[in-house]
């Protein structure tokens, strides 16, 4: 999902960079009081952990392999605002040292993978986990919730990415959105299973780590604000590709901001107006497919949770030599 340079138009890049600067700034500000030497080391090493976890490849059907994105995992392990910092650092390093993802497109990549994915995922996870009492029921909820969050958040991030590409007038929205979604359904299922498995292993090994992250990072206010913001953002970006008048509105905004029309036209090439893609069903078909997909995914996640949650009642976490 790393967008390279050259795909996004300048206005889209700048807008995304602005949005992610605000989000990362808010995350840094929120954690300012807490980021003492101890927390800084924690966030830095967690970032290295996410990077290393992304490099472990999993066999998928037919000789192909996939790997973790990790935003949801980071959000569940260290809390949403730290996860934003962790993922931003990972993306910045991938861009600056490994050339993965563009320099000018860094803002967009941060928005998709470091802001939208962790926030949406964490909101879903918190909503599903609720205030269940400790026990097997909560373990099932936790694993199912994290799996569903991993899958859905990856899809939302993919849709955001598609929206950015469509707004840049590189690819028609009716073309890029279904393509991105269908590819990332596979990626999302992989993300769901592996995030669920990792959390299941942690439930067995060190359950107190999972609660520590939650207890120290979720205040009553943020448990309402974060999901609300995430939902609004996801909705806006999800709906954007379908809203035809919007890009023209963007052009108008660019002109009104005092950038000369010729410059605006350079960055927003207009030959792709009036694209029609045959063979795509109407809105009702899409909605039905989405509904079936969601039901299937949630069923899968519940099964995963039921299979993986430890059966016996725990008598405290097992001692582990480190």
């Amino acid at each position, binding site marked *: *999902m*790393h*967008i*390279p*340079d*050259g*795909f*996004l138009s*300048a206005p889209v890049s700048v807008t995304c960079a602005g949005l992610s600067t605000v989000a990362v700034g808010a995350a*840094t500000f929120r*954690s300012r009081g807490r*980021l003492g*030497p*101890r927390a*800084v*080391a924690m*966030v*830095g*090493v*967690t*970032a*290295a*952990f996410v*990077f*290393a*976890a992304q*490099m*472990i490849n999993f066999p998928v059907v037919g000789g192909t392999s996939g*790997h973790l994105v990790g935003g949801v995992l980071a959000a569940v392990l260290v809390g949403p605002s730290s996860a934003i*910092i962790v993922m931003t*650092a*990972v993306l910045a*390093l991938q861009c*600056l*040292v490994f*050339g*993965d*993802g*563009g*320099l*000018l497109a860094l803002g967009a990549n941060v928005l998709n993978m470091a802001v939208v994915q962790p926030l949406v995922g964490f909101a879903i996870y918190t909503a599903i986990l609720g205030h269940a009492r400790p026990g097997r029921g909560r373990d099932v909820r936790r694993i199912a919730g994290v799996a569903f969050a991993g899958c859905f958040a990856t899809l939302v991030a993919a849709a955001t990415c598609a929206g950015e590409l469509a707004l840049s007038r590189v*690819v*028609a929205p009716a*073309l*890029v959105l279904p393509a991105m979604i269908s*590819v990332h359904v596979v990626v999302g299922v992989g993300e769901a299973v592996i995030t669920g*498995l*990792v*959390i299941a*292993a*942690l439930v067995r*090994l*060190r359950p107190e780590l999972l609660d520590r992250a939650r207890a120290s990072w979720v205040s009553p206010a943020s448990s309402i604000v974060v999901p609300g913001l995430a939902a609004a953002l996801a909705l806006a970006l999800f709906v954007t590709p379908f809203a035809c008048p919007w890009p023209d509105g963007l052009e108008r905004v660019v002109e009104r901001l005092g950038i000369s029309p010729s410059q605006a036209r350079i*960055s927003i*090439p207009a*030959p*792709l107006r009036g*694209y029609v*893609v045959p063979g795509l069903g109407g809105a009702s078909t899409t909605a039905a497919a989405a509904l079936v997909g969601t039901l299937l995914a949630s069923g899968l996640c519940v099964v995963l949770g039921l299979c993986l949650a430890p059966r016996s009642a725990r008598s405290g976490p097992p001692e582990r030599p*480190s």
Partner: protein
Amino acid sequence: MSGAHWLQSYAHLDSPIHRAPASIKLLATLAFVTGVVLIPIEHVGWMALALALAFGIGRVARIPFSAFVGRIALAQPFALGVAVLVLFQGRGLTVFGAVALKSTACVAVVQLLAQTTPFPDLLDVLRRARLPDVFVLVLALLHRYLFVLIEESRRMRRARLARTWRTSPWQTWRSLASVIAVSFVRSIVRAERISVAMRARGFS
């Protein structure tokens, strides 16, 4: 993304490009990328020129040609996917060519920056650019411990492989997941030790 070649860096080589100040290289890269993004899609000649320029600088910087091209290819599957999508719409071929040229030129020049500049130098530039201290520190820690953790997870995987002689895909997934989980627990323990060491040396 499996071999060590992916992590190989050529930032230790010596050339005029390597010796240039990191801040100038970062600014130049940013300017180059912005310029390429702003080229209208009709002007293919300019894009080809930008690409040629990037490869020319690559020669001057004495980065092995095969490594340079290989790293660009590694970063480009996404670009290829989207570029193929572009083919399915009106004026597809023009847009396809433009997007492919533009993104390859940009990836090449960002690679160039990465391969000619040691990461601590880049961090220094970011610090002087008034990026929040927390952020620079997190980036520095990330870069410092990344290779340690990658090596550790490889070691754990190797140990796991040496002890498993019959496996199913589901078992593979489960064992890899527990490798990740254990490596998270180990990173937390390591982070505790690092913070104690940092405070012991006067960090506050």
